[in-house]
């Protein structure tokens, strides 16, 4: 059963998830009206280069677009950019936009994403000229102008954003200090072995890392509009020409909350991306979905999750539902190191190492009761697809084989029997 031509699907959010949802609807035969609404003025663009090539000046705006401008017209996808959705009336199936217009829908897809967590000690209403967050093109454009050789960059937060920018800034000749409140880098997402590998790499490149460091205050210059130094609770002071804050992201659930949808660490959805309202879907960074593999709800901030959930929503709307069962995975580029992670490592009771951190090519496997639940891979592109299969298949491999780099993963997988 296909949707009637009079059907209308609205997509709120023009990031990776929203863009994919629009095109996926058409690919699956949806002939109704599709309107993609976003509060950024540009067409959907790639976010990963914002912390790498774009900030370095080697990639320009046009190269960032996820789809070329003419693709939207060709696919008959309407776009309303630079407008905010100010309210949602789920009973009447209408939304109101910041330009005063309103739109009705048969289906609504919320792809509102997440926003950077703000530093509590700063008044977010009065931004400082040299303090940066990094999520949008506008953020990256503002920051890029200040990323000059010799400048002192202080980074608050030792997660992916902080480390990717640190890598790029050091290569461009900035002086980099990084402040992390936990006892290691990437504390929420990797094992200690991987944290210490990255710590050594960044220190070897010249970054000054301060772990277990609590931020106390940002000292302003005489204009009161710029930070001139960053101060920790132990009293140490770091002069700064610019500051980057990368301390996590908050799901944009306000619209859904206001409309009465169920919220729990994101907009709650089922495995077909339906929210608590049968005409509304939520996808990407803003939603929490059930994971059969991990036996709990997850909210994932990754492009694969955004894109795959977008497809799930489109399939559901086109009456061809397929449950979303993908294993979480993610990548991060720092220097010559490609980190690809699959699965979630919380709850592991064992790790094992394949390859060599000293040679900058290795895999850390995380196991629980003998089953591989996650893996962090550095410069192991040729093995990553098979490692994803290991995790997805809930395999219990032979560990001596796994850690033997001379044994191919293909052979290891072939040896295994299907788990009970």
């Amino acid at each position, binding site marked *: 059963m296909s949707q009637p031509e009079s059907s209308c699907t609205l997509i709120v959010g023009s990031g990776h998830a929203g863009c994919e949802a629009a095109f996926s609807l058409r690919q699956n035969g949806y002939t109704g009206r599709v309107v993609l609404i976003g509060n950024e003025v540009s067409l959907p663009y790639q976010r990963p280069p914002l912390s790498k090539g774009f900030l370095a000046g080697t990639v320009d705006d046009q190269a960032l677009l996820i789809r070329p401008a003419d693709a939207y017209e060709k696919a008959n996808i309407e776009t309303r950019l630079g407008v905010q959705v100010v309210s949602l009336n789920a009973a009447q199936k209408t939304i109101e936009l910041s330009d005063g217009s309103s739109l009705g829908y048969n289906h609504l897809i919320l792809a509102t994403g997440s926003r950077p967590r703000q530093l509590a000690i700063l008044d977010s209403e009065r931004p400082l000229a040299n303090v940066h967050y990094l999520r949008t093109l506008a953020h990256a454009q503002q920051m890029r102008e200040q990323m000059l050789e010799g400048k002192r960059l202080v980074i608050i937060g030792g997660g992916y954003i902080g480390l990717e920018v640190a890598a790029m800034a050091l290569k461009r000749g900035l002086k980099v200090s990084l402040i992390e409140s936990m006892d290691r880098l990437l504390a929420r997402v990797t094992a200690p072995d991987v944290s210490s590998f990255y710590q050594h790499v960044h220190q070897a490149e010249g970054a000054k890392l301060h772990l277990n460091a609590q931020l106390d205050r940002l000292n302003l210059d005489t204009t009161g509009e710029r930070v001139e130094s960053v101060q920790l609770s132990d009293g140490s002071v770091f002069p700064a020409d610019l500051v980057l804050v990368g301390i996590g992201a908050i799901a944009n659930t306000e619209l859904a909350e206001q409309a009465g949808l169920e919220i729990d660490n994101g907009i709650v959805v089922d495995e077909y991306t339906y929210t608590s309202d049968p005409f509304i879907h939520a996808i990407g960074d803003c939603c929490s979905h059930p994971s059969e593999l991990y036996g709990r709800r997850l909210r994932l901030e990754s*492009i*694969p999750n955004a894109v795959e959930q977008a497809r799930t929503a489109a399939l559901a709307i086109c009456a061809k539902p397929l449950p979303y069962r993908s294993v979480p995975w993610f990548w991060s580029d720092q220097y010559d190191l*490609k980190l690809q992670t699959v699965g979630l490592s919380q709850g592991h009771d064992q790790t094992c190492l394949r390859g060599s951190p000293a040679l900058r090519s290795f895999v850390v496997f995380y196991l629980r009761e003998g089953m591989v639940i996650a893996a962090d891979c550095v410069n192991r*592109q*040729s093995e990553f*697809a098979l490692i994803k299969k290991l995790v997805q298949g809930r395999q219990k491999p032979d560990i001596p084989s796994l850690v033997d780099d001379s044994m191919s993963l293909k052979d290891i997988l072939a040896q295994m029997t299907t788990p009970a």
Partner: protein
Amino acid sequence: MKKWQCFFCSYIYDEALGAPAEGIPAGTRWEDVSEDWICPECGATKEDFAMLEIA
């Protein structure tokens, strides 16, 4: 010769160039690239690629 782009990271596989670093010679058509091949930039699979329309 066609070009295929990764949805996740915008890496482009150009049939004319192949991916020699991955053992795929220049001129290898997309359909002849192994189904196990993954995007060298991010790890997405072949089904996460779309053919680029020539303008």
